[in-house]
């Protein structure tokens, strides 16, 4: 469209003006959006009308929460911004769990929500909710657009904010009258964000101090979080660990940033992390945190966390630094850039006694379970999955025991391979997130390792996978309990299993009714065959593994204890 500065508005041919909805779609395309998730409704119909002809792949979930998790899974698997669109009121409210999940795990997402006409706002109109008010604490940024002239700029800003710095979800609320309003063509759409600055380059002096600390350390540990994956810095991490000879432990979200098959890998640390990772952190003299935030599930008792260590913290979010743990050497910036600069300044050190000690811990306390058991142990299912997929699948998880076993027994080897709700711990995340990941990576094997109770929460989305022919696989570790709740009740509430079991349907039958394949496995001997059959499916497939009902996740750092005060080590030792 021609700029028409100097022309009076009356003189413009009305039909040549774009509507707000068209501007939204054009700006989405300009931002490179080719896939969206969402659910239509009254006040977002003008936008949906434009989406009808747009070259954008659209996935309709069965529930907006599912759509939001799909956009999240899509973003985590692809590194691109996930986009979800819903109507006002209930549609927007149903996004909240998904937005909070993405916020906690720093996932880039743009949510577009319809809103009632601007003149009705505040009048308790039909399907009105104060969407920006409700979502303010669970988004990186949100706003309502009340003038069609502000639309293009605001959507650009939304993508920029969502995807830069520490990423996160951004919500743009779109009153229906703004979607249908016509816009003058000469409106500037330049971003205008005076309060938003991202520091990417690390302070050179701080980097040198960090490098010197690494070179001088006898017992260093790299503690790596999801930020390394966000920054696409896995390769730099590998080089640093090799060049300087550093053991690497990761958080849940950091899994995949470092090949777990490598000798430097200490696997995951934390409440249900590897004993050898937790011991190493407690005994290290230098902890190098990269893109991690010292979450309570990682640190356990803060006062005694890494008591002998000097701490380097590399993070793009200044507010993460010294939030929970006092940091000695902060370096604010992009992990990829900072690791690259560190690489140039670090030297190889053998650290023989330290690696020997770590090797001993690894030998003494590996993750383990009773391999001789006659029942199906959930850990066995995961080990077998890992073996048959050669560590090459994208794994989504539910939350709870299923999630912990998945990350203890699957070996992750590359970034964006694990899609799991870490910070918020959102049950029901696995299935829709797997769908989003499969949309992003159509050729990958995508497996949702789920619990029966997590699966119950969002299993309606199986119909979405069927509708779009997304061949996701779902492995339900079905113990008939909310497993982690039951474990806590067993350990801390005297086995009083208060409301922690549900009467479940026959999942294979349900799956088949929805149009997916469904398999039930209740014999240990059938596990490998069922997994093979599942992996051979070209359609969605649900496998219901009837696992040992009261298996526990070990080791475990009970609440209030130090990271090295783990329960269950005796059990693990017996099982080696």
């Amino acid at each position: 469209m021609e700029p028409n500065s100097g022309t009076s508005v009356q003189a413009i041919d009305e039909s040549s003006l774009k509507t707000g909805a068209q501007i939204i779609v054009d700006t989405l395309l300009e931002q490179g959006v080719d896939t969206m998730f969402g659910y239509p409704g009254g006040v977002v119909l003008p936008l949906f009308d434009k989406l009808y002809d747009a070259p954008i792949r659209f996935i309709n979930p069965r529930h907006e929460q599912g759509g939001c998790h799909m956009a999240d899974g899509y973003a985590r698997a692809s590194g691109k911004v996930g986009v979800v669109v819903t109507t006002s009121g209930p549609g927007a409210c149903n996004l909240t769990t998904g937005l909070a999940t993405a916020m906690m795990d720093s996932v880039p997402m743009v949510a577009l929500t319809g809103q009632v006409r601007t003149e009705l706002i505040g009048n308790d109109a039909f399907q009105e909710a104060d969407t920006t008010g409700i979502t303010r604490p669970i988004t990186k940024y949100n706003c309502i657009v009340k003038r069609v002239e502000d639309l293009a700029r605001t959507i650009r800003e939304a993508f920029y904010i969502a995807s830069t710095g520490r990423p996160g979800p951004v919500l743009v609320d779109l009153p229906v009258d703004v979607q249908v309003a016509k816009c003058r063509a000469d409106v500037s759409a330049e971003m205008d964000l005076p309060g938003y600055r991202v520091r990417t380059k690390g302070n050179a002096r701080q980097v040198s101090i960090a490098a010197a600390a690494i070179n001088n350390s006898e017992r260093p540990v790299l503690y790596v979080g999801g930020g390394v994956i966000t920054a696409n810095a896995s390769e730099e991490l590998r080089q640093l660990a090799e060049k300087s000879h550093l053991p690497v432990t990761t958080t849940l979200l950091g899994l995949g940033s470092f090949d777990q098959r490598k000798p430097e890998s200490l696997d995951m640390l934390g409440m249900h992390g590897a004993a050898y990772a937790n011991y190493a952190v407690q005994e290290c003299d230098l902890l190098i945190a990269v893109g991690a935030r010292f979450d309570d599930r990682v640190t356990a008792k803060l006062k005694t966390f890494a008591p002998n260590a000097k701490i380097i913290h590399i993070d793009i979010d200044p507010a993460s630094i010294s939030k929970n743990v006092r940091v000695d050497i902060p370096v604010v910036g992009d992990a990829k850039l900072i690791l690259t600069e560190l690489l140039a300044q670090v030297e190889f050190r053998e650290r023989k006694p330290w690696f020997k000690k770590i090797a001993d811990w690894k030998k003494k306390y590996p993750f383990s379970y009773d391999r001789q058991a006659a029942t199906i142990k959930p850990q066995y299912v995961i080990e077998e999955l890992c073996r048959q997929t050669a560590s090459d699948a994208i794994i989504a998880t539910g939350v709870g025991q299923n999630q912990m076993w998945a990350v203890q027994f699957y070996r992750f080897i590359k970034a964006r391979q694990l899609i799991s709700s870490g910070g918020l711990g959102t049950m029901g995340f696995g299935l829709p997130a797997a769908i989003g990941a499969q949309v992003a990576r159509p050729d990958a094997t995508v497996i949702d390792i789920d619990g029966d109770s997590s699966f119950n929460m969002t299993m309606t989305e199986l119909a979405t996978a069927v509708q779009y022919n997304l061949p996701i696989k779902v492995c339900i570790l079905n113990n008939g309990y909310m497993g982690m709740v039951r474990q806590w009740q067993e350990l801390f509430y005297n086995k009083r299993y208060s409301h922690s079991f549900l009467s479940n349907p026959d999942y294979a039958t349900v799956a088949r009714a929805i149009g997916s394949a469904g398999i039930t496995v209740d014999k240990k001997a059938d596990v490998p065959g069922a997994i093979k059959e599942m992996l051979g499916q070209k359609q969605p497939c649900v496998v219901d593994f009837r696992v040992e009902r009261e298996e526990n996740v070990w080791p475990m750092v009970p609440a209030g204890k130090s990271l090295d005060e783990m329960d269950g080590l005796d059990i693990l030792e017996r099982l080696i």
Partner: protein
Amino acid sequence: MKHIISALVENKPGVLAHVAGMFAARAFNIDSLAVGRTEDPNLSRMTIVVVGDDRILEQVRKQLAKIVPVVKVQDFAGQPVVARDLMLITISAPAEKRPEILSLIEMFKGKVVDIGQRFVMVEVSGPEEKIEAFIDVCKPYGIKNVARTGTIAMPRQAKTEP
């Protein structure tokens, strides 16, 4: 310790809610919060008085700066500032007490802004301690209402007070 935080924010709807919500969500205590426009119509200044140790204040500053429409954050702790509150206070003032009350008002450089048969409304401004002191001396007469702006502040440019 009390800190005076000054935040320059975009003059947009929702910013105050965002800032106030962040304080509530992160369990930081706000002693007072004053907002007003600046010389630039696109920007407002929030002056927030926060109580906390250095560690909490560091987080307050960082979390404030992280809010997208917050443009600049300053903590005035440890530097000379001019900090002022403005108060409107209505005091019981029967005829026989008025001379005393008026002389108190004069001592505090207050201004009578409304007067009735049994009350006076007074405007007082100054550092917080002065305002508190004035409230204390008025208590015996009976305070009917108090409205305060909360502290606003600016760093001193000159080395000495005029």
